[in-house]
C-alpha cells in the first residue's frame, strides 16, 4: 500500500496504454515487413545487379533476410566479395 501511495505521489504509475502504444507501433511495422517471397527475390536480384557494378560477387552464396529484434527490424544482406571491379574510365 505504501509503495502504491508513493507511486501515486511521484506519478510513476505504470500506464498500460503506454504498453499498448509501443506494442502497436512495433506490430504495425512487422505487419508491413511481411513481404512475400517473390518480392524478396526481386529485391535480391535488383540489389545483386547494383552491387555487381562495383564488386564481383557470388550470386549463389548470398542471402537476404528480414531480421526482427525487440526494437528494430533490419534487412540483412550477406555476400562474399570475390573481386573489386576496376572502374572503367
Amino acid at each position: 500500500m505504501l509503495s502504491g501511495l508513493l507511486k501515486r505521489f511521484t506519478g510513476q504509475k505504470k500506464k498500460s496504454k503506454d504498453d499498448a502504444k509501443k506494442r502497436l507501433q512495433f506490430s504495425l511495422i512487422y505487419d508491413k515487413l511481411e513481404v512475400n517471397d517473390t518480392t524478396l527475390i526481386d529485391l535480391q536480384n535488383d540489389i545483386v545487379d547494383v552491387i555487381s557494378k562495383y564488386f564481383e560477387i557470388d550470386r549463389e552464396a548470398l542471402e537476404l533476410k528480414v531480421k526482427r529484434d525487440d526494437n528494430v527490424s533490419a534487412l540483412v544482406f550477406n555476400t562474399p566479395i570475390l573481386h573489386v571491379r576496376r572502374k572503367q574510365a
Partner: protein
Amino acid sequence: MEGKIIVVTSGKGGVGKTTATSSIGAALALEGNRVAIVDMDIGLRNLDVVMGLENRIVFNIVDVVLERCKIEQATIRDRRIDNLFLIPASQSDNKDVLTTAGVERVAKELRKQFDYVIMDSPAGIERGFENSIVSANEALVVCTPDVSAVRDADRVIGILYSRSLTPKLIVNRIEPARVRRGEMLSHEDVVEVLAIELAGLVPMDDKVLISSNTGTPLVLQNDSKAGQAFRRIARRLNGEENVPIEVPTDKTNMWSKISRSFGLK
C-alpha cells in the same frame, strides 16, 4: 451536380461502424441533404433494425444490383428525418452474389439521385469490403482505442490508400476518465500510430444502445454526447468550416453537477 459516395469501414467488427453510418447519414440529412444509406453487409444486415425500418423492407441492394427491381423500389424513407433513405442489405444471400461491376453501375445511378450516399461496409477485407469501396469518393475509418481495432484500422487504411482513397479516422468509444488514468490510448496516441487525419472523436455513450433498442436516431437526442459528436462530424463532411474537433471530456460543469445531485437530471 453529382453526389458524393462515402464508405464507412473499420476492418474489425463491433467498433461502431453501423452506428457511425446511420448517425452521419441522419446528420447529413438534417443539414438539408438528400441522403441514401446503403447496407453493404450482405447476409448480416443491421442498419434496418438500428434505424427502426425493419418492417418496411420489400426489396434490397442485391435485388437492385441484380436488376430484379428499380432503385426506387428498394429505397425506404426514414420515419423521422426528411430526405433520409435506406437501401437495406439482403439477409438470405451470400456476400459473393454481388460483382464490383454491378455495384459500380448502381452507385453511378445513386450519385445522380442523392447528395450523399453512405456505404456501410462489412467487417473484414474480403469481397464485401471490396464491393463497398469500389465506387467511393471518400472513406471514413472507424476504430476504438484498443490494440486490435487500431491494428485492423491500419490494414484497412493501407488498402484504401492503394485504391487512391485518402481515409479520415473516427475514434469511437473514447472514455475520458480512463484516458486520463492512462488505461486507454488517447486519440493523440491513435493518430500518431496510424498517421492519419482525424474526421472526429466520439465518446463512449450509454445512449447509443438505448437508441438502437428503440430504433430512433441518436443524432436527434440533444443529450447524447455521441450523437452530437456525429452531428459535428457530418457538418465538417458537409464542408462547414469552423466546426472544431472536440476532445471528449468527463469534466461536467458545476450546474449539471448540482442539478444531478438534486435528482433533476
